[in-house]
């Protein structure tokens, strides 16, 4: 595979853009926030990040934003993932691996049904004020 140039990336972006618009139905209301602190990384959060990317792409769910943050204060159940979805309370899932990530996409995001076995908490009280920054 030859190295892609920025110009080629631009062309690829333009060709995908029309595609994206067609799929974008409910706006960017869904948010997946992955904890990438030392604790998260040690527990495999990077693999979870990759799994969400693959699963959302496979299901063509482009209206979901995936972002990363530091430790959310639940180190004992890492990797942790917060899901913000319209009409649902924000939820923090713990002990998330690639399989659970796929379940979250299928159940929580697509069917609006929580993955009960992995629901943990809101962030610890000591970091909630600053939003976990």
């Amino acid at each position, binding site marked *: 595979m030859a190295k892609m140039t920025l110009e080629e990336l631009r062309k690829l972006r333009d060709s995908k853009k029309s595609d994206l618009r067609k799929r974008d139905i409910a706006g960017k209301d869904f948010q997946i926030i992955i904890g990438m602190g030392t604790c998260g990384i*040690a527990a495999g959060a*990077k693999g979870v990040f990759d799994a969400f990317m693959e699963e959302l792409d496979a299901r063509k769910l482009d209206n979901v934003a995936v972002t990363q943050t530091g430790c959310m204060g639940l180190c004992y159940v890492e990797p942790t993932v917060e899901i913000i979805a319209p009409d649902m309370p924000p939820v923090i899932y713990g002990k998330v691996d690639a399989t659970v990530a796929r379940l979250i996409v299928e159940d929580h995001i697509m069917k609006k049904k929580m993955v009960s076995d992995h629901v943990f908490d809101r962030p610890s009280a000591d970091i909630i004020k600053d939003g976990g*920054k």
Partner: protein
Amino acid sequence: MHASLCDFLLDIGHNAIEADSKNICLTIREERFLIDFTVKDDGKGMSEEVKKKVSDPFYTDGVKHKSRKVGLGIPFLIQAVEAVGGRFSLESELGKGTTVFFRFIKNHIDCPPIGDFVSTFVALLSFKEGYQMVINRSLLLDENKEEYQLDRLELLELLEDFSTIGNLKLLKSYVQSQEAALDEIRRQGWQK
């Protein structure tokens, strides 16, 4: 403990992002038996006093988590580096920034696997904070050298944001194609 060298890079790189840096420069120089990482930022830096304490796993500045008593990122790294006879150094000045350097000996039996640079770079580039990050990655095998550079602001201008899946996938395929050129000279090296 982290499973791969890339995990250490992600951890230390994330420290730089969280230190309110405007400019972060990551350099990864890989050779046949060595791999050197440099994470340089212009963030808030550390005082002499704090610098002495960073290697202590029971020290944290307590800003983010008030009641927490541990800070494991750098101690993990030092432990892993020492296990393979590598090197670790940290230079920092309060208000000016921090530079962390670490070296792993790849063929040491206790050296963790290198890991996946592509997903690590995608993760490092796509944190939501506003920062510039330049990643210089090179591989030198005998006389063959291959290298590439990723410039966060340049890519961000092109792709607009790094949170939607479509854009993250585009970013990933771009990084993948750059890293593939390094795999090519690695393959040539084996054939010799």
